[in-house]
């Protein structure tokens, strides 16, 4: 039985959607979800997919069907199509249907936005300061005094409000696991709200081009249990709160001279052992868990890297550098005997750039030989 072309088309569209939609929804789109905001945003995205796939499949089906059915066949070289100039009813439909869809989507997106940004009781304020090319986080304690760190530590389940500042150019405070980002703008304070809801270590990325070291302007956020967080905070030294602007020029004229390219800032360019040491003790946060004589760290959660690396690499049967690289990016590929699996964060492969990891490997290999 020959069906009407429109019926055939609808059938193809429906089949296409039935195949396309599950595939689109099955793709593991998102990184770890670590804040209540992230759940809502992921759901929003899935809804957007459910709306978009049929639209795209629809357009695609019409094109493919037309190519299949209406393409010029031999002997039709002089033939023209029927002179159809329009169809008012159809045009109204394809104006109104997207309009309704859009109103619905905007309303839904607005509710998500509102839920994500609404002020919650008991918020803890954390100041975020961006500077070429590092992040600083300060936790106000008494007036004028704060705890200042280069790593972000947050208690699970407690809403935080980030007050974001910049000291030079625009940066952007981005935590993919929270699905949140906001610019750090010189001269003003911007506000971002998050409620972390999953323990773990996630990356903080600078997501606004801010100069040569932009790609390396990373930090980590550690979501701890409230008790562990309090313990951590109590251990930190309290300092006078830092200002948000660099020493002002006092109204004088900046010399209109070419600014020298700020090169050689922390961590960009080639991988070096010296940079690795800085990451080990600084932004990587390795020293918190590992003892390493050369770096002067005394953590006891993980093995003492100074003495364990060489023998463990032999056990694993890998060259030292490869073993270190593997241990950082895939800690669970080999568990150091006597230590628990899954404690060393699995996320360094994401939170650190490849150059940073190379630096760490270079450093660790050089001090454990």
């Amino acid at each position, binding site marked *: 039985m020959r069906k009407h072309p429109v019926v055939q088309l609808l059938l193809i569209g429906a089949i296409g959607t039935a195949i396309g939609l599950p595939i689109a929804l099955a793709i593991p789109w998102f*990184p770890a979800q670590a804040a209540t905001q992230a759940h809502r945003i992921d759901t*929003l*995205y899935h809804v*957007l997919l459910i709306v*978009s796939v049929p639209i*795209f499949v629809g357009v*695609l089906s*019409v*094109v493919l069907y*037309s190519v299949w059915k*209406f393409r*010029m066949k031999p002997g039709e070289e002089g033939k*023209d*199509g029927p*002179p159809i100039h*329009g*169809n008012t009813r159809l*045009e109204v439909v*394809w*104006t109104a249907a*997207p*309009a309704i869809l*859009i109103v619905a989507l*905007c309303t839904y997106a*607005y509710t998500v*936005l509102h839920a*994500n940004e609404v002020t919650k009781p008991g918020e803890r304020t954390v100041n975020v300061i961006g500077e070429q090319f590092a992040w600083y986080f300060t936790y106000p304690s008494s007036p004028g005094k704060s705890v200042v760190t280069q790593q972000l530590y947050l208690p699970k389940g407690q809403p935080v409000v980030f007050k974001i500042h910049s000291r*030079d*150019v*625009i940066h*952007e405070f*981005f935590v993919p696991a929270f699905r949140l*980002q906001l*610019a750090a*703008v010189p*001269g*003003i304070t*911007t506000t971002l709200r998050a409620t972390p809801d999953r323990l773990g270590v996630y990356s903080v*990325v*600078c*997501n*606004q*081009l801010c*100069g*040569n070291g*932009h*790609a*390396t302007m990373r930090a980590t956020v550690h979501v701890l249990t409230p008790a562990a967080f309090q313990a951590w905070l109590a251990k930190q030294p309290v300092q006078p709160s830092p200002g948000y*602007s660099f020493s*002002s020029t006092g109204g004088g004229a900046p010399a*209109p001279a070419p600014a020298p*390219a700020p090169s050689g800032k922390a961590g960009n*360019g080639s*991988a070096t052992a010296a940079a690795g040491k800085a990451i080990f003790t600084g932004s990587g946060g390795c020293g918190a868990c590992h003892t390493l004589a050369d770096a002067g760290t005394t953590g006891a959660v993980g093995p003492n890297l100074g003495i364990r690396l060489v023998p463990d690499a032999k056990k694993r049967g890998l060259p030292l550098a490869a073993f270190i690289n593997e241990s950082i990016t895939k800690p669970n590929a080999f568990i150091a005997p006597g230590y628990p699996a899954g404690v060393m964060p699995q996320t360094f492969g*994401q*939170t650190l*750039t*490849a*150059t940073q*990891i190379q630096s760490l490997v270079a450093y660790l290999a050089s001090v454990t030989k």
Partner: protein
Amino acid sequence: MLIKLRAPGWYRAALFDVIGFAFAFGLVVLIRTLMHEHPVLDGYAITTVALIAVPLFFLVGLGVADYWFYWAAGKRTRPEDHSAHGARTWRDYFRVNTDHKVIGIQYVVTSFFFLLIGGLLAMLMRAELAQPGMQFVTPEQYNGLFSVHASLLIFLFVIPVFAGLANFVLPLMIGAPDMAFPRLNALSFWLLPIAGLMMLASFLAPGGSFASGWTAYAPLSTSLPLGQTFFTLAVQFAGASSIATALNFLVTIITMRAPGMSFFRMPLLVWANFSTSLLVVIATPFIAASQFFVLLDRALGFQFFNAFVGAGKNGNVIMYQHVFWFYSHPAVYIMMLPGFGIISEVLAVKARKPIFGYRMMAFSLLAIVVLGFTVWAHHMFVSGMAPWIRIPMMVTTAIIAIPTGIKVFSWLATLWRGVLRLDTPMLFALGFLTMFTLGGISGVMLAMIPFDIHVSATYFIVAHIHYVLFGGSLFTIFAGVYYWFPKMTGRMFDDRLGKLHFWLTFIFFNITFGPMHLIGIQGMPRRVADYAQQFATWNLIISLASFGLGLSTLVFLYNMVASWRGGPRAAANPWRALTLEWQVSSPPPIFNFDAVPTVVGGPYEYGVPGAVHGIFKSPAEARPTGTIATSPTPE
């Protein structure tokens, strides 16, 4: 020799370059001496002034302004003998020429040159990104690469190539002998290579090329080395060029249509360029201003963007973004609407059907123009601007999907039950339909604020950019270039190579830019030379595919060059199209029409037995109805 130096042309241009540089040098020294600045010789200042002066002197030397100088001085203007009209040898393309057909080809070829350069820079970027870690370039070089890549492709490729195609076909389509202001038209063209070469020259500046992205956000752009000044000024030249062309198009369309060609008998390409030109005339001054601010901050120490002056906040950093995007969002439609016009032409002719819903097609163009001015802050959802602005911007942004949807659906309806000629222009048009829909849909997703807050400035954006600009604009450009190639060159292209080009491009394009959606959502930031290990596999695949994409361009190049030199002669109307440009010989005669044609029907009456669009009798014989009577044009 002296005569050569005095006559307009390259020799005089070279001489004037030298004079221009001396002028800049002298001016800076003079002013710095008067202001008691030390040292008197400041290379930075001299370069800045020279970047303004030398191009202007160059233009005068080349001869774009001779006529105006005579005219302004009240002297007898040399009657234009039109020996420069039309191009007889390839050398004529390197002269100041006022023939819109020559200018059109000059535009198209120049823009494609910059496409190749811009694409080559993309190849370098992809080589660096193939693996995590730093391999070939330093971070500052990488920042320079994508900045120049995007700036060239936007300001020197997509925008001007559309202007070039329209320059060639638009006067023909409306039955005009030339553009309204032919000399201004020549000036617009010659501003372009200046802008492009200036951007490229920034690679030679101390400190490297400009490296703040094509968006050049302050205050990063006010603090970068000298190369940034090259961008700031090049954009002024490119902007002046687009404004001048847009003005020219608007005046041409309004005042020079053939008798009988009412607005609703204009081909949609004309409508599209009309809308685009409105956008250009209204929006482009904003990017000029944004770059003036940056230039003033950089060169004269103004404080527009210094938020740390004296005691506290004083300059406003976000102001830059508002001003910039007030141009640059409309700019994305400047880069799309002419493409919509091309697609309408190609689809109607190749499906042998009238455009479905012609009037709605025209109105939706105008709707996009109006809406385009109300959405700029969707680029600033995470910029720290006042949060409430986001909501109206989300709504207006999403609404743009409606007029765009009308267009897409009308094109689909045009295909329906047509007799589809699946040759190269048509394949690119169909590729455009699907790929642009994909890019547009990801745009609507981006309009949803909470989602944008996650993916802004990730590779999801890079994916969107390329789906709309490559899958959208570039596909329409390819369609248009193939479609009008016979008209422009008088030769046919090789359709088999064209199809090969299409399929290679289509496939590699999707492998290159499709996965970017995924790694973007997973959190890979844009504008980084180095990235986390977890993205390594996808990036390798993307890089390999992008090399394939680059190579597929070579097929196109070969086809164009070989066919232009030795392709079979093209008939006047190989596609059996109705619009006027196909009713004259290929390539068209020097003055387009011997007599102004008279338009008696719509442009897309395919399938209507005996339909005509224009008739080539003198207006006296075919008296039009309802238009102003012909009168001799005063100069």
